[in-house]
């Protein structure tokens, strides 16, 4: 019955080089981390996010074989090509479920996802909600430019009303999504906001998100100089704006308080809005695994299956 093709293919042998213990390895340099020359427009806010991702990897001694960088489609989502590490450039809006598959099946990796506002909140909106509520362990940075960059200036779900785009020549009229509120109400366990013009703050948020055991979400304002120039000037002190950090007395575990600060008018607050511990899906599934495996302890895989077959006689 079994077809000739139903045999496991033989793995090709490869040369094995034993890596140094992590403590003796030098952190990866920018040179080792750079891949393709970014194709972004000069001045695009996304450059600074990339530079800070390199910094994070260097500072936190993350190795090539410990991370993976995943994105959907958009200018911002081109990210993985610029990082010299295992990466995947998936389809528009679906980076989160793809990344979830990696995160759930490979606890040894840290999964980073980068993308744009359209990718996250329009085509990928439902995935955003479900990844947040499932609390799947990963770090997700949305580079929000309030516009569709790659497709050249259409309205995005975060475009403020009145924004004149090619699809709303008279000014956009739909209520924009507030990413902070969206994340909090969806059940995200780590919600932070930063902007590309404040590199130290971006790095700080990335580190905190990475250290969070769960779905760590950052909205990083990232200016599209091509199609929405000056969008974020009001948040940039160098342009006469105000960079207000989250009030010192803000309780990050208070959902209502987080929702409240998310309601303030632009430029709003920067920092961690919400940060709570809730078991990750990774942990919940691991628990189910452990209790199930307890029942079949000592059995080989085929013997576990045999038990099912014995009941089917």
């Amino acid at each position: 019955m079994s077809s000739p093709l139903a045999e496991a293919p033989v793995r090709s042998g490869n040369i094995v080089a034993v890596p140094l213990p992590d403590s003796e390895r030098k952190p990866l340099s920018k040179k080792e981390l750079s891949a393709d020359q970014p194709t972004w427009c000069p001045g695009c806010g996304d450059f600074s996010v990339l530079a800070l991702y390199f910094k994070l990897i260097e500072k936190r001694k993350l190795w090539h074989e410990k991370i993976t960088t995943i994105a959907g489609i958009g200018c911002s989502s081109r990210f993985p090509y610029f990082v010299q590490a295992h990466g995947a450039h998936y389809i528009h809006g679906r980076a989160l479920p793809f990344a979830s598959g990696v995160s759930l099946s490979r606890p040894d990796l840290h999964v980073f996802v980068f993308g744009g506002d359209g990718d996250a909140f329009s085509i990928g909106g439902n995935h955003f909600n479900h990844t947040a509520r499932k609390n799947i362990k990963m770090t997700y940075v949305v580079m929000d430019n309030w516009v569709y960059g790659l497709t050249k200036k259409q309205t995005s779900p975060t475009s403020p009303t009145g924004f004149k785009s090619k699809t709303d020549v008279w000014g956009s009229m739909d209520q924009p999504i507030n990413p902070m509120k969206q994340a909090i109400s969806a059940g995200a366990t780590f919600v932070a906001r930063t902007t590309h013009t404040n590199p130290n703050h971006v790095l700080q948020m990335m580190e905190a998100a990475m250290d969070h055991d769960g779905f760590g979400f950052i909205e990083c304002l990232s200016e599209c100089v091509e199609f929405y120039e000056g969008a974020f000037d009001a948040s940039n002190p160098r342009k006469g704006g105000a960079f207000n950090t989250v009030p010192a007395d803000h309780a990050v575990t208070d959902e209502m308080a987080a929702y409240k600060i998310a309601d303030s008018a632009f430029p709003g607050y920067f920092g961690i809005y919400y940060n709570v511990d809730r078991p990750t899906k990774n942990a919940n599934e691991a628990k189910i695994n452990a209790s199930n495996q307890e029942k079949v302890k000592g059995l080989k895989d085929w013997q576990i299956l045999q038990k099912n077959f014995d009941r089917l006689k």
Partner: protein
Amino acid sequence: MSEATIAAPTAGGVPKVSKISETIIRIAGNSQDGIQAIGGFLARLAGRSEQEVMTFMTIPSTISGGPSIFQVRIGSGEVLSSGDDADVLLAFYQHSYEDHISSLKKGGIVLYDSDHVDPKPEWEKDYHHVGVPISGLTVEAIGGTAKDKGKNIFTLGLVAKMFDLNVAKLTQLVSERFTGKDTSVLNNALAAFHAGYSHSLGNVLETFQFVESQKKDGQQVVMNGNEALAYGLIAAGVRFGAGYPITPWSDVMEILRRELPKYGGMFIQCEDEIASISMALGGSYAGRVSVTGSSGPGISLKTEALGWAVMAEMPLVICDIQRGGPSTGMPTNVEQSDLNIAVFGGHGDSPRVVIAPANVEDCFYTAIEAVNIAREYSVPVIILSDQAIATRIEAFTEPNLEKVCQDISPDLTPVLDHKPYDLSVASGVTHHRAPGTKIQSGKYPIATGLEHDELGHPTGSPKLHMQMVSKRRKKLQVLAAKLPTPALYGPSEGNVLLVGWGSTQGPLKEAVDRARTAGDSVSSIHIKHLNPLPPGLEDIFAGFNHVFVVEMNDEGIYGYGQLAGLLRARYCDPKIRGITKTDGLTFKVKEILERAKSNVAAGLRKL
């Protein structure tokens, strides 16, 4: 079973005992009557008695119940289909009786619940009527209302008596089924069974005994196609998957959800089918071939991501348990109308592998084959099953699990260098290296949906696009060359060749048997590998005057079904024609033969 069942009663009213080699019993009632359970017990008993068995059922698509049937064909010899006409009809209600009497052979027995059914005098001359107050007697035996509890088991007792079934084995099966529950449940079930078994069959003229089974090839297992598929995936080493519920795929995902944690794996229920295929692709990208699945509507949603899998050359197994379409269509009926979307669905040139299991046993092995093709060729593989195979129960030789089960754990061995899309490989076959693999050269791969260079970085180069398109195509040509040519059933030359795929294999073989017994020159082949097609088909076709592709889909605008369309495009042979149907039910042997006859009579159509 003997054709003329209405025999003269033997002296003294003792029913005569006839030896039979097979029988077809159709149980008709409502879905909440537990008629599937009767069928399930009979199927399992057949499995334990080295007999062959095949079942067929219909269920209403609403959960609140409604008319439902379960047909079981048990034989001491080979059983190829669930059978055309029944020898025995068990009718619980007037509607069951009236709607299904036509599926009973002339002279067959209708055993009805006389508490609910008024037999029609005009039918009494054609069918032997046996009335038993099933509802009342069940209440008598176990108390309470027999509305939905117990009367199925009482009826099982009647059937056991009528066919002289092995009571010890049956009561053992009933006990196994009800262990773990309240002991009164088991006691009631056994009481109902014995009440049915010891009920005098009164005016039954004949009871039956199976001749000894010829099938002696060891231990059998009994399950339906979806179970076989799910267990096959586990045997293949799949440990991660994701899906979204839809009939008739849901039970595959339910089994995987329940079973995979025992193996350290998991199956995730996602928010939709797009997320499901994406998550499964994430699992594959992470280093171990993963699975997703659905039925037609969900497969449509998955096609963009399927294109990514082709482009990124990511292995993946996608199960499509076909049902009647398009759109929500006929959720609980069978159709083979997803072949086109399986082979062609998606944008761009996106070659993928499509294989279809031919029976329940084949579901198990096809799952393993799909996983291995996906790994070997770094390609998505679609398993095209269907509602009929998914829900029907068959007994088959128990696989040697120790031999069959495989370990496909991710290989994270460091490598010196790695080109995920290496163009220097003549076969076009390259392999993905999962994240976590250290690459000494420091050049890391990107899995991508953009057209790319050998490392996975984007390119707009026309030359690279041409090379990569041909790389992705070449792999399947290499695979095609290695595929086995389908075996002929019947002589290699003759008048008519019937070509089938998927769940129609049984009725097709039976059609060949019946035609040849009648002196007609008919053979058949069954194509399991639908994309790419196996080599050697043209030589087979050359041996016949007519090639009829039998499939459960529409004849289409040009007069032939979906596989026929593929074969005509591939072989440019006008003698390839279609025998199709869209009634949502499996092919009957006589339908196939009648259609083949009229096609031959019509001659080669001018097109």
